[in-house]
């Protein structure tokens, strides 16, 4: 068991976990009922999936080649910076163009506020 084998196992673990999270979020996009619940799956799981995959790649090249790729770390940083904002904007635009909530919804605090404004 030398260093290379251990690093391959660790980075392989990270990449597989990232792939599983991406797959699950794709399942979520199919199964969940409306756009708002779908963006739950799309923002959270994909973010962690991309994070795990990029981090596994970073570890692999660091351990085997001794090459520290700052670009991969920057990629993680930018995904973290932009994914929640994109989810926020898509949800907001959907709500303001009257995309309906799913039938199971039990509470809607935003409706009266927007009505009062108009």
């Amino acid at each position: 068991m030398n260093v290379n084998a251990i690093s391959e196992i660790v980075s392989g673990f990270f990449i597989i976990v990232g792939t599983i999270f991406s797959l699950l979020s794709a399942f979520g996009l199919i199964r969940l009922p409306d756009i708002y619940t779908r963006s739950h799956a799309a923002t959270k799981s994909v973010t962690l999936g991309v994070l795990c995959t990029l981090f596994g790649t970073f570890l692999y090249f660091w351990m085997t080649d001794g090459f520290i790729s700052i670009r991969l770390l920057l990629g993680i940083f930018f995904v973290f910076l932009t994914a929640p904002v994109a989810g926020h904007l898509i949800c907001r635009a959907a709500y303001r163009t009257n995309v309906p909530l799913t039938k199971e919804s039990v509470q809607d605090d935003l409706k009266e506020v927007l009505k009062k404004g108009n």
Partner: protein
Amino acid sequence: MAFQILINIVIALIWVFLLNSFTGADFVVGYVIGILILFVLRRFLQFDFYMRRVWAIIKLIVLFFKELILANIDVMKIVLSPKLDIEPGIIALPTNLKSDWELTLLASLITLTPGTLSMDFSDDSKYIYIHAINVPDKEEMIRQIHNTFERAIMEVTK
């Protein structure tokens, strides 16, 4: 805070010049010595000792990663359960944060935590409207989580 970091860098540079060896390791040693000097002289500083704020940022990052992993386990459970028994809804969450910067950070953190997604700000920015995936059993718990986040952000910017 920026001023203190500048002082710290200047102390590290002076340390490097005193040793007359210009390497990264000596710069780091000088920087640590500068932190100690600033810590000793903290009552003369106009603002709070800045390492406290750095420590608060580190705590916020650790809290964030913990919540991110919990959020993903949460979504995984919902997606993989054979029957979808979710009750989504939109909740108004009152907040005490003032500046745009803090509000943006809080909204991003809310989006990446279990079962919640920030959707809209009210015009006076006293409320954040969040879409929760499971309203009845989670409302109190979510509020509590956001109190910890809000407090952590206040620790950083105070």
